[in-house]
């Protein structure tokens, strides 16, 4: 998702982009692509441990020491196997770490710097799965619910400052994360369209972005559905 957003950003104007990934070689593949698309764009890759608070803090300090950052997009995630999480607490813990704690740590590290500068935007990709726990994937949903609640709090903290926090909630999207859903025949939104909506939403200054937009309506229904009804749904 972040890769598709970056393609759209650099198509409009030259940018300076830093890709932070769990694997340098994989990030470099994305960087090479962006450089071909926009020779005037400068792309740098950094590898970091996504679950280490010290390293994340160090990364944010290092990036900001090179100058202020206009926009941070936090987009990582892993869709865990819910069944596996229920029988293996290690899997459960990892899923909560990478989908919940890790994005919060990144956002918190960058928020401090941005608040000091009184400018910048932090966009965090949460998920519609965080809006209400469902039996089919509530561990992932819990992690994303944490991200959602965190960004709400961050927005509260940053109100009245020049810094903006944006909460993005995609529905099921065709990305590497959802490969197995696709094999089961799930209908997934094309990632290019989702990215276009994200880029547009951020540019328009929106604070909560459901992508595709229909999910705002769907989740409104899901959130407010009475428990007796909800319990009968196999979702």
């Amino acid at each position, binding site marked *: 998702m972040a890769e598709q957003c970056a393609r759209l950003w650099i198509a409009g104007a030259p940018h300076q982009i830093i890709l932070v990934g769990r694997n340098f*070689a*994989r990030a470099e*593949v*994305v960087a*090479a*692509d962006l450089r*071909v*698309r926009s*020779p005037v764009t400068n792309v740098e890759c950094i590898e970091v441990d996504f679950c280490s608070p010290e390293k994340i803090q160090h990364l944010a300090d290092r990036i900001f020491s090179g100058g202020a950052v206009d926009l941070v997009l936090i987009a990582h995630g892993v869709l865990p196997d819910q069944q596996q999480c229920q029988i293996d607490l290690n899997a459960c813990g990892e899923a909560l770490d990478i989908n919940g704690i890790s994005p919060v740590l990144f956002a918190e590290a960058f928020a401090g710097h941005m608040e000091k500068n009184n400018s910048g935007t932090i966009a965090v990709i949460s998920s519609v799965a965080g809006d209400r726990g469902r039996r089919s994937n509530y561990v992932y949903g819990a992690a994303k619910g944490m991200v959602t609640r965190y960004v709400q709090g961050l927005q509260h903290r940053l109100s009245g400052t020049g810094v903006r926090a944006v909460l993005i909630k995609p529905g099921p999207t065709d990305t*590497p994360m959802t*490969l197995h859903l*696709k*094999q089961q*025949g799930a209908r997934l939104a094309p990632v290019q369209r989702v990215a276009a909506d994200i880029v547009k939403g951020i540019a328009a200054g929106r604070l909560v972005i459901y992508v595709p937009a229909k999910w705002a309506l769907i989740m409104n229904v899901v959130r407010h559905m009475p428990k007796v009804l909800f319990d009968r749904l196999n979702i």
Partner: protein
Amino acid sequence: MVAVTSWGRLSSADHLVASLRSRFDAGEVIKATKPGIAYGMGRSYGDACLNPGGVLWETRGLDRFIRIDIERGRLVCEAGVLLRDIQEMTIARGWILPVTPGTQLVTVGGAIANDIHGKNHHSRGSFGDHILGLTLLRTDGEVIECGPHLRREWFCATVGGVGLTGLILTAEIQLQRVSGPWLNAETIPYQSLDEFFELADGSSSEWEHTVSWFDCVSGAGRGLFIRGNYVDVSSGPEPSGRSISVPVLPPVSVVNALTLRAFNSGYFNIGRLRAGCSVVHYESFFYPLDSILKWNRIYGPKGFFQYQCVVPRLAAKEAIADILKAIAKSGLGSFLAVLKTFGNRESQGMLSFPCHGVTLALDFPNKGKNTELLFNRLDAIVGEAGGRLYLAKDARMTRSFFEATYPRFQEFLTYRDPGVSSAMSRRLMGY
């Protein structure tokens, strides 16, 4: 399992789709899930990209550019990149793809595997003629780098090899220098096949692009001849950027004897009135149908065939006349009728389609037995004339017809990857 169709929508069988997302993992994925066949945009019309009940390796996720040498116009990219994405990226920098088909919504891998051609075959050959090298992944884990001067036999098997030699992972493409996105295009009506041949022969040295639309109902061989050259102008019309989509699948084909006659006659007469020269954007010149999304739905739930044949030059006049007569007599056919001459450049691929001659392409709504009977008649004419059918379009030729018309098929078989199989390969080669 997911229902997958090809462009002709003749079938909608369940497939196991394995998406390839990274060129580093692709080898492992195909090894673990073989046998399968690569599936890009599903723009081949028949069964070349299908494997009912089996595995498809979806390549659209392999859509990264790797590097570009902007001085020499050489681009290296992954095989799932769309031709459209290349041209959008390079046109402002003075380069364009030298060969593209009638749609730019196809992948680089698909363009190589079908050795696609365009309106400029007489001047620039086919897509494979502009590939400087490619990486082929075999399902046993072997990686084969090949090109016109490097392990050439693998290159010639893979170009036009309908995906059967392995998975095309990356390619290096030689781009064509252009001064801008505009062409000077001219439309000339013609009333007979003789006139078409005169126009085609008279245009081949001065005009880089030539193609013609013909009226398949009239039987006389009337049509509109279109030719174009890139032109150095500082400004010109931009493509509208708008696209419409055929929103629903009509219960029956909207193409029938009535609409067909009215459309062909109207299209010819409007074209005749509008004949002349104009400056047009390359997108409107090359890909008029790309602005109508899902146009393949107009043929209804039974889908459609595209019959595309080539007949060698010496036999062409007579054979094309016979084909046109047979089509007109059948009352079948469609609006999308194309007649074009190929140049005398020999294709590199062992199973490449183009040869020095004339190609005819025409859509036919699937009307079951009647359509098949007509195709058998057309096959007889094509076979007699020493021609062949285009694998990218074919869904129904027989194995014996394939073997008789693709003389290098035996040689090709030795380069097949035993872990790659498609509905087409089983139909035409037994496995």
